[in-house]
Each structure stands twice: as C-alpha cells, then as structure tokens.
C-alpha cells in the first residue's frame, strides 16, 4: 500500500470543498437553458448549513439502522474518495486491487441508504429502495467491466498488475491514449450512462421530482431530516465528484506535468462534466421506468464490448 504525498491530501480537501459546487454548476446550466438566472452560486452550501443547524426528527418505528444510514453512507463515500487519483497525482491510498474496494465502498453506502429506507416501514420508500437496487445492480457491471477493459488495455508485460485506480491514472499518458483505440470511447459512453444513473440524474432519475410514482433516490430519503438529510445531500454531491473523477481521470490524460496547473486542469474538467450533466438534463426527457434497465444493460454491453474486443497491450 502506498500513501500519496501532500498534493494528494490537498486534492481530497479540494474535493470535499468543491463537490457541492458541482451541483450548483449543474443547476445554473439548466437555468441558462431555460432562460432563468438560476439560484445563487453558493446555494448548495447555504442549504447544507441550514440543514445542519436544524434538529432531526425520528419516527418511533425506526431503529438504529435508520440513524446509521446517512453516517455510514458519508463515511463509505468519503473513504472511496481517498482512492480517487486526481490531476496527474496518485490517490491518498493506493494498492493492488483498490478499485474493487472502491466499487464495493460505493455499494456499502447504497446498502445502508436502502436499509434505512426499508427501516421506516413506508411502502413508498420500499418501492424507491427496490428501484435503486435494481438500477445499481445493472450499473455496477458496467463500472467493473470498464475498469477491467482499461486494466487489460494498459497492461504492461514488464510491470504486472494494473489493478489500482492510481496506477491506471498514471499509465494513461498522451501516447497511450492515442494508441488505446476504441476502448476509451466505448468505456467513456458506458461510464457516462453510469454517472447519470448513479447520481440520480435525468434520463434515469429526476432529482427535482416530487411525484411519488416516479421518484427513485428522492423517495428513499423522504423521512430523513436535519443533519441526516444534510449528510445525504453532501454524499450525493461527493458521488458526482467520484464518478466525474473516474470518467475524466482514468480516460483522458489531461495535464501538463506541473502539479498546481494539473490540479487546475482537473478542476476545470470536473466543471466541464457538471456542465455536460446540466446540458443533458436540460435537453433530454426522462426515460420511461421500464426503459431504464435497457439503457443500463446497453452501457454494460458497451463496457463488455470494450473488454472482449481488445487484444491488449497499448504499451
């Protein structure tokens, strides 16, 4: 296991501070498309502050599982953040096979959110939990197969094992990128769909909907209030950062080799992802619920295609 340098720690701090800002960028992009001015740039931070000052209300039917849900979720996603390389620097923690832990930490966060929703005993929340689990079960193979395809593509006979996010991030140089061929576009499209699904965005879920029959993520968190809801909102923002970081960090060799400048380029790329999410939300209608699995299976098919078609060894 290797521990990253001061730059890596600075990147985690940056992610913790800037993640809610991505939500703001998405919102402003949508507002610009609709011809509105949009909310203030710092609105997500005000919202978090307001929620944190409030008290939490707990139903008598809930148990400790309900209270643990938001905390475990935030802890798991925060830990996953430690493994995300950013701006040509390795992650804080990296070791062989860390991307498996990365994916399963996100799985743990989801498990506890779902358990907390089921713990309320509400039929609506059970329905939301059902959908969340179905969709993420279909999205997870796409992430894993994409990572496997990248590891296979970038594998170097001299240095065995590229089963680490940081190693993949470092191996994706401009030369390799140009020679990587079709793996990059196929995985990029697959991960883009996964990003939209995992962060509950259109066309899979609509973060602004409050119609019970169509909600997925929102319906699960209806009973959370005060600081608990602040944790959940913050976790959702961190997930946007995580999946965006996966997409731009592992697939595109953005950077010039100067530490500070690379960080700036990385942040700019994340803002670009947020703008793209906003554009998708503003221009595409939501899919019918039965069509969503088809989209996610399509993403998995693309990632599988990248994996099986590749003959290995760009270096």
């Amino acid at each position, binding site marked *: 296991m290797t521990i990253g340098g001061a730059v890596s720690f600075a990147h985690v701090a940056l992610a913790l501070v800037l993640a809610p800002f991505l939500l703001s960028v998405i919102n402003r992009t949508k507002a610009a498309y609709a011809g509105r001015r949009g909310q203030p740039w710092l609105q997500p931070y005000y919202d978090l502050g307001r929620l944190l000052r409030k008290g939490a209300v707990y139903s008598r039917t809930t148990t400790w599982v309900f209270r643990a849900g938001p905390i475990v979720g935030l802890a798991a996603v925060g830990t996953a953040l430690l493994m995300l390389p950013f701006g040509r620097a390795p992650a804080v923690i990296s070791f062989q096979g860390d991307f498996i832990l990365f994916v399963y930490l996100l799985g743990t966060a989801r498990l506890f959110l779902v358990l907390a929703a089921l713990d309320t005993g509400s039929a609506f929340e059970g329905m939301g939990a059902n959908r969340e689990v179905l969709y993420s079960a279909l999205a997870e193979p796409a992430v894993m197969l994409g990572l496997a395809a990248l590891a296979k593509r970038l594998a170097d006979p001299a240095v065995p094992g590229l089963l680490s996010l940081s190693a993949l991030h470092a191996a994706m140089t401009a030369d390799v990128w140009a020679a990587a*061929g*079709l793996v990059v576009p*196929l995985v990029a499209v697959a991960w883009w769909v996964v990003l939209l699904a995992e962060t509950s965005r259109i066309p899979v879920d609509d973060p602004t909907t409050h119609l019970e029959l169509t909600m997925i993520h929102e319906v699960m968190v209806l009973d959370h209030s005060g600081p608990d809801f602040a944790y959940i909102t913050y976790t959702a923002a961190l997930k946007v950062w995580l999946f965006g970081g996966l997409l731009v960090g592992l697939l595109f060799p953005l950077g010039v080799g100067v530490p500070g400048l690379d960080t700036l380029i990385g942040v700019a790329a994340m803002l670009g992802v947020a703008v793209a999410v906003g554009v998708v939300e503003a221009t595409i209608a939501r899919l019918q619920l039965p069509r969503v*699995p*088809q989209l996610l*299976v*399509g993403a*998995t*098919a693309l990632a*599988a*295609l990248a994996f*099986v*078609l590749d*003959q290995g060894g760009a270096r």
Partner: protein
Amino acid sequence: MTGLLDAAFVLLILTTLVLLGSSRIRLGIRVLAVQGVVVGAAALLLPNHHVTLRVVVIVLIGTILDAVVFPILLLRALRTARVERETDPPVGYTASILIGVGLLTACLWGMKYGGITLPHEGANPLELPVAAYTVLAGLFLIVARNNALNQILGYLMLENGIFLAGLSTAMEVPLLIEMGILLDVFIMVMVMGVALFHISRTFDSIEVGGMTALTDWPDQEDVGK
C-alpha cells in the same frame, strides 16, 4: 488502416445490438441501412485482398442494395402493414442485448481456441468472429421476433454476416457467385414484401405467432381473422 477497420467492426457490432434491443421497426430499417454501408466499408478495408475494380463493383452493388433499395422497399412495406413497433416479442429486448453480447463473446472465444486459421497473411483477428457473430445475431433475431418485418431485418443481417464471412475466408471473391447471392437476396426481399402485403391484407396484424392457429378444418372457420 487497422484502426479504421476496427472502428468499422465496432460500429457493425453496435448496429446489431441496436437491432436486437429496439422495438421500433422504422429505426431498425434505418440502422440496417447504416449497417449495409459499414459492411461495405469493412469489406473494402479488409487486408485480405487488393482493392481491385471487381471487388469495388461487388461491394458497391451490395451497398446500394443494402443502403438504398432495401430501406425503400421495407419502408413501403411498413406503411402498408401500418405497424410501428413490436410490443411483445418471444425474447425481450433487454435479454436480447445480453444474448447478443454472449454470442459475440462465444464467437471470439471460439475463434481464439477453436484452432481456425484464415488462409490470408496478416488477417485481422476480428474479421471472422465478427462475421460469425453477425450471422448468429441475424438468426437469433429471426427466432426471437414474431413480427414478419423484424424477421426480414434479421434475414438481411444474416446476409450481411455471410457477405463478410465470404470475403474473409475466400482467397478470391468469385464475381458470379456474389452476384447470384445479391440477386437472391434482392428477390427474397421483393417476395417477402409481397407476402407481407398479403398477410397484412388478410389479417389485422403481421405478427406471425397467430398463424400457428390456422387450420383447414371446416368446423373451425374464421380462426385467425
């Protein structure tokens, strides 16, 4: 060259997956037209043969049939049959995509470990598996759909795969045989168009599943009408 050929193969695979996963017949016809162009481009890019006038003529005729003539005929059939989509196929659309990926994996695996070698020097390792996959996916589409138009689409996909397989396995492309095959396919589409017209005029739909209930027994008249 190799990059372009790989891109063509991936595009070909993606078009087959769209055909397997989409319920809209109009979209399917258009995607099949694109697939015809992609197959033509792949045939010209194959490293097996020199691009001679003969090959260009064969590919050009095949592409014109696939990309222009068949879509026109099929869209006309679509209008007379007045259907837009197949709602309840024997194998669902999501399952079909997964089966498609499974077929592709099986073809690649079979090619790698089956001990099949192509007679050409420096043949692309993808060309035969992708051709075999296109054939199998076309066959699967015929089996997994009840709508007669979708079955025609499967048949044309099958033909695309056979065209590619022929080009990648044969050392020389025999002009007469290729012409014969293209003529056969052309006549098939015409005949199927006429058959479709008759089916849609006699019955309300072109779902062929209901035809198993047809019978000659006089006491069961009006079955299927």
